């Protein structure tokens, strides 16, 4: 034994060898690999967020060359501003409708795409199309569908004799909300469908066959076998959907601009309007901070699920 130790000790050691050993080397490489992402995160997300956090305590309008510290005054103003509260309420409606709608449509489409039929592969590929298209392009496509003068929807309904004159769908609060919700659902179905499809392909087919032999119908199979099996996927999808819909800006702004009046002004549009239409960066930052606060609970849930290995 002593001989062996002596032999080991006699091996020449590289002058570049580090004292920490293999584990420490791996850690360093890990940190080095993390560095680009960390730098990008710090530059694109952390720094702007901290800047916005700081600016929320300042008055900073277009007329001011330098911001003026005002403490929590912006937040006091928000508390008494009905427009901001209306934006919170509109956001809640939008998130609830889009998340529920996408969940139902994504699951339904995944169930169809999970069935064996001719052309399934082509249809599955085509289902990803809304995901591939830039969201603003999708918003303009839907804008044309709902357009009061040239829209396909009006043409179709007039052809069927259901309406006499073209309707201005985007000019009613309900129509505009429906349009932005439908657009977002259409955009999100591919992602949700992919999650569900992956989950469905792990489902034990024999279990379903056995249930059917026992007399279970489609609804019973869905309720008692498929949905319980998809529960972990459902949880992740709901949380991701809520986060994504809370952050939504581009499709809404491109389709309705937050209007008519303020009917589709969600928090993201409210922040934009305060910053770039009313030129009040301090107030916009304060609304932005509250918007981030609204994002924290679902983000926390999501991270907790990831850590727990769900």
């Amino acid at each position, binding site marked *: 034994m002593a001989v062996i130790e002596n032999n080991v000790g006699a091996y020449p050691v590289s002058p570049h060898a580090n004292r920490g050993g293999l584990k420490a080397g791996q850690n360093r490489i890990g940190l080095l690999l993390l560095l680009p992402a960390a730098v990008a995160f710090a530059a694109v997300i952390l720094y702007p967020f901290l800047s916005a956090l700081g600016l929320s305590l300042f008055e900073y309008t*277009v007329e*001011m060359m330098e911001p003026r510290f005002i403490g929590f005054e912006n937040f006091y103003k928000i508390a008494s501003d009905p427009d901001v509260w209306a934006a919170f309420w509109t956001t809640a409606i939008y998130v609830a409708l889009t998340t529920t709608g996408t969940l139902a449509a994504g699951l339904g489409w995944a169930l169809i795409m999970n069935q064996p039929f001719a052309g399934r592969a082509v249809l599955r590929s085509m289902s990803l199309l809304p995901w591939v298209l830039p969201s603003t392009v999708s918003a303009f496509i839907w804008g044309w569908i709902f357009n009061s003068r040239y829209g396909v929807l009006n043409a179709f309904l007039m052809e069927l004799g259901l309406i006499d004159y073209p309707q201005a769908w985007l000019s009613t*609060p309900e129509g505009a909300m429906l349009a932005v919700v439908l657009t977002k659902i259409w955009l999100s179905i591919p992602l949700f469908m992919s999650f569900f499809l992956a989950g469905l392909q792990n489902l034990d087919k024999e279990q379903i066959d056995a249930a059917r032999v026992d007399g279970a119908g489609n609804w019973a199979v869905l309720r008692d076998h498929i949905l319980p099996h998809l529960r972990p996927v459902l949880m992740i999808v709901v949380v991701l959907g809520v986060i994504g819909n809370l952050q939504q800006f581009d499709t809404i702004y491109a389709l309705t601009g937050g209007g008519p009046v303020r009917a589709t002004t969600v928090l993201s549009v409210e922040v934009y309007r305060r910053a*770039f239409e009313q*030129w009040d960066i301090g107030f916009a930052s304060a609304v932005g901070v509250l918007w981030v606060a609204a994002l924290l609970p679902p983000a926390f849930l999501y991270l907790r699920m990831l850590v727990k290995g769900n």
Partner: protein
Amino acid sequence: MNTFTRLIGTAAVALALGSGAAKAADLSFMSFTYAEEANKAIVQGVLDNFQKAEKLTVEPLGFAWGDMQKNIFLRARSKTLPDIAQLSERWLPTFASLDNLVDLNTVYGKDKLEAAFAPDALAMGNINGKQLALPLLSGSIGMVANREVLTKAGINDAPKTVDDFKKALVAVRDKVPNSVPYSMATKNNGSILIDFMVWNWVHGGRIIDDAGKVVVDSRQSRDALGFMVGLLKDRLAAPEIDRPDSRRLLAQGASAFYLDAPQTRTFLRDFSGKGQAFDANVLPMPTPVLKAGDKPVSVQWGHLLVQFAAGGKAKADDPADKFLTYIISDKVQTDLPLKMSALPVTKSARAAVADDAYLKNWSAATGDARRNEVGIWSNAADLTNIIGEEVQGALLGQKSADDAIKSMQARLTTSMEKAKKSE
């Protein structure tokens, strides 16, 4: 480590080359006209000729009209402002407090500018005695009609009173299928403001008086908004119409009337696909008045050029100032405004184009234009949003005209508490 050093070195070289490329032009010019398909070639021609004449290069930065203000605002905050920027006349008070905006009186001399420019045009760029902008184009926003559509509807003369106007609209609605008789702006707060302001003036109302007091809560303003709501209810106007939509509808023979600046002719030539052959259809007309004998109203309109320089200091031989000098020369002023169907801004150029039939007709039709009563305030953007939202709320039936006017009065009054006027 050596690889890392090489990477850093390469990045530094790339950055240096990149910044070198960015500084390749002698000056930068941010313009919304340059972003307009119908006008881009006209502006590019001016830039090319300037380069030939002065051996100086210009980097054009085109942004859509609707995006210009926020781009200037963001560039001001990030200290990346261009040397020269084009503004609508109503935006100047909003940016007047930027400390690197050059007072052009200090560059050219007040007397020289007053000698060269038409007073009404020069006044658009003057704020509290400082010449913060030079005019590029001028004119007024008034009513324009499509002569061909009027003929189809059996209308021989442009309507003179509001009652005649409504009768003409009904005729167009009934005789020209799928038309929007009056392409009133019902979308985009900036566009809605102009239509409301004009009809409010027609009905004898004001939004904000000269002292800054909000006076919109009046019978006249209620009548004006009620009139606009009535047009939409009777399908004489339509929802979802912004100024660009109005131009396209008129160019395609699907609308009879709308409000625009004289440069509408250039847009209509382009959007109709007929070029100058479409000019015969473009009929500038006085905005209908409430009762015969009233004076037709129109809104002062113009494009301005502002200069940004460190500390607001510049000299006449700086590249940016040579560019301004070139733009206001007779060579450009007797050409560019005409191509864009607008009035030149210098006295000599106006004299040279005095015989242009279209501009003469336009001026005769719109008469003395009034200054935009919202655009002169430092909080114009906020005022515009409030007015746009309240008017749109009434037009779309979300609230009554009375409630919209009351709410407008209250919101505008709050907004005006910190406002500064530009005179």
